[in-house]
């Protein structure tokens, strides 16, 4: 019976058996990586599986079995299909380079929205009501809707506190996600350094997509591969050409000057339009254009300026990848300039509203008192408390936060409209015209102008990044904006997917702005910081409106936190936080962090130096190996010089035994004749049977080292031979 069998097994045997089981399991796991024939794989698999099944139960005595079952269950439960394993899990709209950005955005948006809506939908009270001026303004979309009641409902949900925490926590979470992704990318991608290293080899071996099954796609792919090779060839040939560097510099300065003028012009235009919109705010008879003028102008600028930049950039004649980076940088500057001008103008408006508020507050208190007075007058009954004034009659303050939220929502909506229209007209209508008019047009519309639109990867990614920046900024004042954006992203994904397949052709130039996605993630990070600033500034400095929003009535928005600490948390925590908030503690903490950053920075620089040194060494080793194989002399000038200085072989007396053990790479050239060690032979040049045959004695015994001819060499000769490693073969 099994119990006695198990007891009779000694400890040593159990250990050995355990080891074997582990080994078999490892073989099963590694089997995927081995290039075996299926037959061999199946044989091994069956063997290992049987062994494992037979002995694993015996070892564990039930506990092991349970643990094993638990492990199996956990891996089955927790392991879903990895990202990118099936088509529906990879983003079709933007190609592989941008897939990561998109998933960051989608994850963040969906999670956040779901969270907000479940909490908010359950606990919102309806103290504010709908005026005829537009229901949306007073809906859950905007800041003004939320009541400032401290706790809500049965569970005493603290709405104001949660509003603030979610608003700030959103930024914190996004920051973490972006930085984590960047760190992961830096790990994998290895930075932008090595683009030029294997250009032709990669083009040859990795450009074909083995998943292509469609004849038209295959033709496209052949064409793009051919174009890409031709481009590299032209590139290679151009590197030998000599250019007039002064002319080039002048042209570049000129181009930059023109672009700065454009940027300045667009900034001024936005400022002007914002001022105009402030005047419009006082009038009532506005056409649709005048109401949405600001947002339209901003979207149009974003549409018109990039192609303008591209045409100007043709003066500069940069390498395509560098030109792309400049272009992206300029578009980024354009967007930032526009956004910040818009924000400053908005701040002006907010200040106006704050002033207005003071007078309205007085007016509303007055109206309330009047209402009570009238009520007692009409009812002649001073004991009952009068019912509260009908909410729609209460005089409303100019809720500045909602106004800001409205502006952001309008901006997003107009952005959506412009994007969709552009695709419809710029891509779809163009494709239809080219396809059908081609039959009766004088020149070939498809091959030359206008032809089909190209799918602009970098432009679209930038669009996503900017969109996200706007959402980050507006989300605090218009929580519903996040929901709107999610809907927009979902619908535009399908829409653009269709548009790309139906109307676009692949880009002629196939290159990316950066090898890893870190360039775009860096942009995203920058935008995150820049959108964080205005929101945090307003939370800290501006007073909330007196009658709308979850912070109404308080002096500053973050007073909510103080209140919570005072009322909800135990007393000692309050005193503790009081001590922690002392500048005497905070300043040293900040200093410490600055020092840590400085230290880590210098450590990383040191590592980079070490890496560069190692790379150089490898390159030198490789070159020497090549030269040795080809029986030519070393091309390294330093080595050549040293060799020239060495004594003539045939004149040397027999060498004394070596004094320095191990491999010495430093030899004093010129100390010929006396006690010179023939160490030089080993360390500097590689043994070359043809050139030096005159030495009669092999160098003396050295320390133990790998002998040549040891079986450590893989296919292709192995790296161990040659310079200074191990002993040279004995000379004859």
């Amino acid at each position: 019976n099994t119990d006695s069998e198990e007891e009779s097994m000694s400890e040593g045997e159990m250990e050995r058996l355990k080891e074997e089981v582990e080994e078999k399991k490892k073989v099963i796991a590694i089997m995927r990586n081995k290039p075996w024939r299926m037959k061999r794989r199946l044989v091994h698999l069956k063997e290992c599986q049987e062994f494992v099944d037979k002995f694993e139960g015996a070892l564990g005595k039930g506990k092991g079995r349970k643990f094993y079952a638990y492990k199996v269950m956990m891996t089955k439960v927790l392991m879903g299909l990895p990202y990118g394993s099936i088509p529906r899990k990879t983003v079709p709209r933007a190609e592989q380079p941008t897939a990561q950005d998109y998933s960051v955005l989608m994850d963040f948006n969906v999670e956040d929205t779901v969270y907000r809506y479940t909490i908010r939908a359950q606990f919102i009270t309806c103290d504010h009501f709908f005026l005829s001026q537009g229901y949306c303004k007073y809906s859950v979309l905007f800041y003004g809707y939320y009541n400032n009641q401290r706790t809500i409902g049965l569970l005493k949900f603290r709405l104001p506190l949660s509003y603030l925490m979610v608003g700030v926590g959103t930024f914190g979470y996004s920051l973490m996600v972006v930085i984590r992704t960047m760190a992961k990318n830096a790990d994998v991608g290895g930075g932008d350094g090595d683009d030029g290293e294997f250009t032709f080899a990669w083009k040859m071996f990795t450009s074909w997509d083995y998943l292509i099954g469609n004849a038209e796609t295959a033709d496209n792919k052949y064409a793009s591969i051919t174009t890409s090779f031709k481009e590299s060839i032209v590139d290679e040939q151009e590197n030998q050409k000599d250019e007039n560097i002064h002319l080039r510099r002048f042209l570049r300065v000129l181009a930059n000057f023109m672009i700065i003028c454009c940027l300045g012009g667009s900034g001024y235009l936005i400022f002007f339009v914002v001022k105009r919109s402030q005047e419009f705010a006082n009038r009532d008879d506005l056409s649709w254009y005048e109401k949405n003028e600001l947002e339209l102008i901003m979207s149009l600028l974003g549409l018109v300026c990039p192609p303008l930049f591209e045409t100007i950039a043709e003066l500069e004649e940069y390498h395509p990848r560098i030109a792309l980076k400049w272009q992206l940088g300029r578009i980024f500057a354009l967007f930032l300039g526009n956004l910040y001008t818009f924000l400053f103008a908005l701040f002006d408006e907010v200040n106006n509203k704050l002033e207005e508020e003071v007078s309205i507050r007085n007016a509303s208190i007055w109206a309330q008192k009047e209402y009570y007075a009238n009520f007692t007058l009409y009812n002649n009954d001073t004991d009952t408390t009068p019912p509260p004034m009908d909410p729609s009659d209460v005089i409303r303050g100019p809720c500045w936060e909602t106004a800001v939220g409205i502006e952001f929502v309008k901006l997003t909506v107009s952005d959506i409209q412009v994007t969709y229209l552009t695709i419809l007209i710029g891509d779809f209508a163009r494709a239809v015209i080219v396809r059908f008019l081609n039959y009766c047009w004088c020149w070939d519309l498809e091959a030359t102008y206008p032809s089909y639109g190209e799918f602009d990867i970098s432009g679209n990614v930038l669009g996503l990044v900017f969109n996200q920046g706007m959402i980050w900024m507006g989300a605090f004042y218009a929580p519903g904006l996040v929901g709107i954006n999610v809907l927009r992203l979902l619908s535009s994904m399908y829409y653009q997917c269709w548009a790309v397949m139906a109307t676009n052709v692949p880009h002629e130039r196939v290159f990316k702005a950066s090898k890893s996605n870190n360039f775009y993630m860096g942009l995203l990070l920058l935008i995150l910081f820049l959108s964080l600033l205005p929101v945090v500034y307003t939370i800290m400095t501006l007073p909330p409106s007196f009658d709308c929003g979850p912070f109404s009535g308080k002096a500053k928005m973050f007073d909510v936190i103080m209140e919570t600490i005072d009322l909800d948390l135990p007393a000692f925590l309050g005193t503790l936080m009081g001590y922690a908030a002392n500048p005497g503690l905070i300043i040293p903490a900040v200093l410490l962090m600055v020092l840590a950053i400085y230290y880590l920075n210098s450590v990383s620089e040191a590592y980079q130096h070490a890496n560069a040194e190692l790379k150089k060494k490898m390159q030198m080793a490789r070159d020497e190996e090549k030269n040795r194989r080809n029986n030519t002399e070393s091309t390294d000038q330093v080595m050549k010089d040293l060799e020239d200085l060495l004594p003539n072989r045939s004149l040397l007396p027999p060498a004394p035994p070596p004094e320095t053990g191990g491999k010495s790479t430093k030899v004093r050239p010129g100390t010929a004749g006396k006690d010179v060690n023939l160490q030089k032979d080993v360390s500097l040049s590689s043994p070359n049977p043809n050139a030096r045959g005159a030495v009669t004695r092999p160098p003396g015994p050295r320390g133990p080292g790998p002998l040549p001819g040891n079986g450590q060499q893989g296919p292709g000769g192995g790296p161990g031979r040659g310079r200074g490693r191990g002993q040279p073969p004995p000379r004859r």
Partner: protein
Amino acid sequence: MFPDLLLSVCPRLHGRFHELAPHLVPLDYTNQPDIRLPLALIVSMPELKENPFRNRIVEVFSEDGQGNLSFNDFVDMFSALCETAPRELKTIYAFKIYDFNVDNFLCKEDLEKTLNRLTKGELTPEEVNLVCSKAMEEADLDGDSKLSFSDFENMISKAPDFLR
């Protein structure tokens, strides 16, 4: 051996194998017959039809090197071409595929053949020569003017796009 095991694990794949030659491929493997399909049939599959290296792919996975695949080899081929196959495995098979003269090295003629297949003969002979010599120069580490597997692997491991 064990085709019945394979059959039970991937019935759809066997379905595809069967429909290539319904009269040849049995539906049940209890007698363990040894059926091999010729190259011409395999390369007519839609997944491989457009691939410039289809002949080489099939030859690499066949046991006799002529392109005749048994069901085991068929499954082998698709598992290596699959998206979730590990990178090292793909590297090994890619090397074999590009090695046209099957000497375990990628010599200049292999590179030229690869290039011509990729560009469908659109490049001039001088351009072909230039590209092949540059590629050889870039990847050849030990200076023997052919690429051994370690050269190839070293070069591919740094490539950002090599997944398919």
